[in-house]
């Protein structure tokens, strides 16, 4: 079992003719992902890695019966690409692109709320169900199949934590990189509710970071609605206020909102052990299982 994606997921890659798009489409296919088409306006009729390219996402999804898309287009065009995917038959959109203007994402979020679809990202590494499918740019080889769900705002930190888990034989059901932007599609609560509903997921790791109040809301959700145990990690304890730490969303505001302390405390109050180091997170997961 898994959430969001599995071996049956049929994927359209938006931007498949670009450098990133072509490379990662190849990597996804190599991992076993069922990539069925690409979508790039003006490039319909071509082929990349043996799959057909269509001019529109709707055209690709209809012809190839796709149910998910991965957005690998440059930031200036990415919001439009997400709008297009949301207006096509696909149910899941995974947006990898970093650097989409926040106001664009605000409008995307409004549209998303008018649909029943899932958007993961943007500015995220994607979603992987080890051994079945990966939608995005995650390095498939560090993941292993198992019973731990993982949700994280950060890419390489996810890899670090997964590395620690895999080292101890703690495999994953699905790992979801929700992305480091201030406005994202799937948030912690959405991802946690998917894992809570998944019988195969027996524990969840949640890697948060400074900025916003998603982690605090997740803590409330965990406290009130979750039976599946959760282990936490929060990056950015040493970040100064007012500075953006790499991710557009990783910023403690001038007034002191969005600190690591606030998030660690909220998770602690919800009974979530928060590790001081990635190693400790793996320790905590072992204990919770």
């Amino acid at each position: 079992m898994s959430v969001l994606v599995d071996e049956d997921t049929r994927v359209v890659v938006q931007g498949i003719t670009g450098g990133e798009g072509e490379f990662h489409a190849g990597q996804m296919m190599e991992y076993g992902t069922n990539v069925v088409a690409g979508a790039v306006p003006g490039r319909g009729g071509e082929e990349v890695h043996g799959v057909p390219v269509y001019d529109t996402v709707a055209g690709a999804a209809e012809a190839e019966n796709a149910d998910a898309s991965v957005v690998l287009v440059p930031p200036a065009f990415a919001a439009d690409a997400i709008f297009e995917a949301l207006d096509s038959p696909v149910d899941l959109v995974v947006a990898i692109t970093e650097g989409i203007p926040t106001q664009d994402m605000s409008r995307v979020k409004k549209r998303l709320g008018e649909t029943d679809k899932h958007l993961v990202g943007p500015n995220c590494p994607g979603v992987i169900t080890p051994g079945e499918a990966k939608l995005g740019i995650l390095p498939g080889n560090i993941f292993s199949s198992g019973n731990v769900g993982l949700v994280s705002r950060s890419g390489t930190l996810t890899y670090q934590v997964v590395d620690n888990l895999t080292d101890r034989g703690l495999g994953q059901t699905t790992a979801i990189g929700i992305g480091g932007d201030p406005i994202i599609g799937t948030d912690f609560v959405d991802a946690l509710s998917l894992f809570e509903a998944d019988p195969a997921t027996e524990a969840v790791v949640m890697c948060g970071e400074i900025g916003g109040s998603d982690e605090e809301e997740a803590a409330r959700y965990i406290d009130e609605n979750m039976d599946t145990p959760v282990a936490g990690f929060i990056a950015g304890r040493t970040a100064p206020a007012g500075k953006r730490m790499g991710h557009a969303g990783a910023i403690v505001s001038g007034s002191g909102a969005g600190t690591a302390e606030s998030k660690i405390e909220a998770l602690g109050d919800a009974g979530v052990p928060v590790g001081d180091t990635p190693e400790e997170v793996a320790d905590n997961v072992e204990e919770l299982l």
Partner: protein
Amino acid sequence: MRLHEYQAKEVFAEAGMPTPESALAESTDEVLDAAESIGYPVAVKAQVHVGGRGKAGGIELAESDDEAREAADSILGMDLKGYTVERVLVEQAVDFVDELYVGVTMDRGAGEPVAMVSSEGGVDIESVAEESPEAIAREHVDPAFGMHHYQANRAVYDAGVDREVASDVASVLTTLFDLWEDRDASEAEINPLMITGDDEVVAADAVMNIDDDALFRQPDLAEMEEAAAGDDLEAKANEYGFDYVRLDGNVGIIGNGAGLVMTTLDLVDYYGGEPANFLDIGGGAKAERVANALDMVFSDDNVDSVVFNLFGGITRGDEVARGINSAIEEFDELPKPVVVRLAGTNAEEGMEILNADALDVEQTLEGAVQRAVEQAGGAQ
């Protein structure tokens, strides 16, 4: 990217916002010329990205040439919380009877903008928000529709703004929202919005922060950033295309991926050290980028040791190692000790081929951080 007050006011004035007459000056003579053409009294205001300029002596009122000269001499060249004042805005001093606050920002939690009006302007709005949140009227704006006219009105009446100026303040809020949207701002505010004795409304200050990710479609604003480049190291990071934040400690940190770099900083702190910076070199590990990152961290005099923490994802660890090796070949000798740790795909192969003569190679993240803290002088 934060605009200077004078830049924000230019943008405001273009959009028809009522702003006081003003001129930028870089010398005492220019201040005097500007003051004369505007007419006394004037305010002389330091143009640096620092909050609380007034209290720190960065704003002075002048009623005469003598006072203007004095203000110019004291402010130009002064050090304001670490920034040297190179320019001042000379501005018509507004005779006000009331001060309001108007602002627009993105509410992350709601995923949509929020427009705000408060009758308690002229003071730190964040304290108002904490102490008497009801004193700030808020209107969430649907990003697809933009702000409706009734919302501007409602915010103004809910904030208890005087009936005589309510409609002008609503116009200011509408203009501010439109600017916020058109200019891809993350934040736009006027504090104080001054009300004069004859019910004129004037934007006495102007704050605009622009979404860095949207600068590609705001070319005129992007140009303002180049004109206002700050700190040397930050300018360098900008040039190299790194996400970089300078901190106070002595352990330099280089890594890939924001979350992992933040975690490395946290671990330096956890093991008793003090991080000197945040530096994210992003994806891949080409030799040139590695060399640039080392150059940056070595240029920081505060740095006593460096921890280089890379997680090879799609890029294989052995490739990363070769990138690091060829980068350090560009240095005759590394000026500061560097601890490297590689993880992820082909990490072991990578660590084996790393140039162990020039570098400290560690197997774990925790180990690498501890070693770097040690090299920098041990736990504090």
